């Protein structure tokens, strides 16, 4: 019984890790005022980057850095387009998602001559490889990295000068500008952080699977955004929301279809998000200037 429970728990956590990482990424971006739909593409790009770099260098940890770097590259593109190019943030995000999908697909072909997947590789692995699922997870450095990042994200957002300025960029950019700090700069930093975290989330996916497969992000970036909203842009709550979504997904895998149609469980994260958006379980207030490019001499107010 305990074994089953632990195995279940391990699966919930494993499924939740990429959500947590990506949702924390979204939180940094949106707290600064930039909507980051591009997370889906960043996840995919990060996964691809991690696979390619690991295969090329043979080093799992260099691969992790590669995944984060590709994530940051895509995020930087999103940042430049939306912050300095003042483009619509949703459109830019969608474009980057399509770009990531096409580029990784093309990359697979060019690099590995395959339409579907990369060669197998060993990524960062657990110190308890081959043991029981729960133990294996506890021995995984990336798992502890994700857990630590939740706390770090909280400290950074709410206990540091950087976080204060970042939140100001989203909630009152004019005040930040008036205080002599760069609104665009902080926003870009938030977007870059989201790229690093999203890339790390992709790295986790590809590490779990030991190979990159076409379109493997499979909507996880969007689920992470949903968790970010349910968690009200607060790292701890965001992590909890991710666990909730992870649990729903685990149930869907484990519970036989005779009990509940799996489609229903698949819907769950989105249903919860809708409920939260509608304000039925405590209203979620997005950052006040989310989605607006900052214009110093804009309004007369």
């Amino acid at each position, binding site marked *: 019984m305990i074994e089953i429970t632990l195995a279940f728990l391990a699966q919930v956590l494993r499924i939740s890790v990429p959500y947590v990482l990506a949702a924390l990424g979204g939180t940094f971006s949106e707290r600064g005022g930039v909507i980051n739909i591009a997370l889906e593409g960043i996840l995919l790009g990060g996964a691809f980057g991690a696979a390619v770099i690991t295969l090329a260098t043979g080093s799992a940890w260099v691969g992790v850095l590669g995944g984060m770097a590709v994530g940051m590259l895509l995020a930087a593109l999103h940042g430049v387009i939306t912050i300095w190019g003042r483009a619509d943030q949703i459109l830019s995000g969608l474009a980057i998602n399509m770009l990531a999908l096409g580029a990784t697909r093309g990359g697979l072909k060019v690099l590995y001559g395959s339409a579907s997947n990369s060669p197998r590789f060993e990524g960062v692995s657990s110190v308890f490889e081959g043991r029981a699922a729960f133990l294996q997870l506890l021995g995984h450095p990336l798992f502890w990295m994700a857990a630590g990042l939740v706390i770090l994200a909280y*400290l*950074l957002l709410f206990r*540091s000068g950087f976080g*204060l300025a970042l939140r100001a960029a989203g909630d009152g950019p004019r*005040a930040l500008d008036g205080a002599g700090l760069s609104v665009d700069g902080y926003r870009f930093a938030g977007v870059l952080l989201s790229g690093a975290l999203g890339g790390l989330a992709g790295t986790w996916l590809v590490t779990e699977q030991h190979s990159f497969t076409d379109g493997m992000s499979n909507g996880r970036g969007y689920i992470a955004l949903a968790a970010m909203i349910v968690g009200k842009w607060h790292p701890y709550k965001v992590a909890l929301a991710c666990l909730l979504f992870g649990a729903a997904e685990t149930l869907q895998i484990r519970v036989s279809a005779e009990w509940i149609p799996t489609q229903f469980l698949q819907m769950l994260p989105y249903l919860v998000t809708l409920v939260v958006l509608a304000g039925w379980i405590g209203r979620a207030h997005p950052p006040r200037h989310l989605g607006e490019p900052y214009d110093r001499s804009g309004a007369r107010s």
Partner: protein
Amino acid sequence: MIPTARFVEVTKKYGRVTANEQVSFSILPGEVHALVGENGAGKSTLMGILSGFVRPDAGTVLIDEAPVRDATPATMLRHGVGLCAQHFHQVPTLTGYENIALGRAGKRGLFGSLRGDRKRIRELMQRYRLDVELDVPVDDLSLGERERVEILGLLYRDSRILILDEPTAVLAASEVESLLQTMRTLAAEGRSIIFVSHKLPEVLAVADRVTVLRGGRVVETLPRRDVDTERLVRLIVGGSPPRPAQWSAQVPGREVLAVRDATLGRLDGLSLTVSEGQIVGVGGVEGNGQKELASALLGYEPLVSGEIRFMGEPVKRDVRKFRRSIGVIPEDRHREGLILGRSLVENGALGRHDRSPFSSAGVLRWDKMRAHAAEIIDVYGVRPGDATLPARSFSGGNQQRFIAGRELSQRPPLLLAVHPTRGVDLGAVQFLHGRLLEERARGAAILLITADLSELEAVCDRIHILYRGRSFYEAARNEIDTDGMQSALLGLGPSESRR
């Protein structure tokens, strides 16, 4: 004396609108320099230029006689310029303390303590008697409190050129007094204070010199001893001053609005009535239930208990219908009164755009909308007189004139006017007062919520002073005694009903 700041032939245009033209004057150390002029005279734009938010098209700003090129808020801050904007530059979700410390956020280590300067801020609070709660989000503070946070922020950064843009517009009389005092103290320390205001008595009470702007140009800069109210008004309006509106006795008709035992938030059992041809004023220090009263009447929040009756019928589920049958000059013209990005043509039809004459069979009648906006602009003296410009390119006073025009053109049976003359120039104040009195003569019932006691005395038939959510002082026009009203603001003095 070497000026701390000097404008040299500064020009700024917004598309077709000229905000500043060839503006030149200087600010000296240790002086309170008042900047006066009608709405749209270019005061706020000029202060935007000095604080680095607005880039001039031509001309130079000198600080300590050295030209500052390509100024940003950051460079101006380094030069010691601090702006207390009319619509505060604050992060509403952050506490007062965090807002003040925001400027230092980038200059600390990643996790450098944000608490280190608490002591210094406390000292500033005491020295300048700027008492305010610093550990709650500024969103939860009154406008007066938010202003104190803003000024503390300027002092914390040790600004030596302080720009106060309409700082007294949101304050009660007692708060104004202490702010003027603070300004004098700051100037005595050698700082330059630029005091942008429409309130001439305050200007004359505190300023060392006065610069008058009209139509974006400097009319004159004068020492305080060379001006009096009359001269100043002449310079501001460029001719003889408008006549103050005249109240005359009139018998009220039947009751239009009745509020009974209204309780909501800080509102605690308020009762009042307004009849046809009557202006009822509600005054008091901000935060004594005025906001909740307006909110309940506008249907934003239902009363916790009590009742609102309109034409004898209780207003309950049909709040929307009620809202559409009355005229409203809302407190926050930017959020509730206008769609800033849309033209006056569209704003002029707002709320009635789906009815005749602005719509027929569901299709907008642009010709009628244009004609309507043009008429409002004409009758209410909105400048610049171009209805195709978006609402945001008009100054506050002109926006207010336009809103008043839109609301009154419906000839509503009831008008709710919330701080209608806040931050509005003298000409516009007297014009709006005149319009309110004309509507009253027509038979409209008017509920006027204001923090300005002279406004209550100028136009009201009956006044209520709110204190802690109740009508603490109530008087008919001929029974008003100014002292009683003043002390009622603070909850002092006899509270017996004076019906």
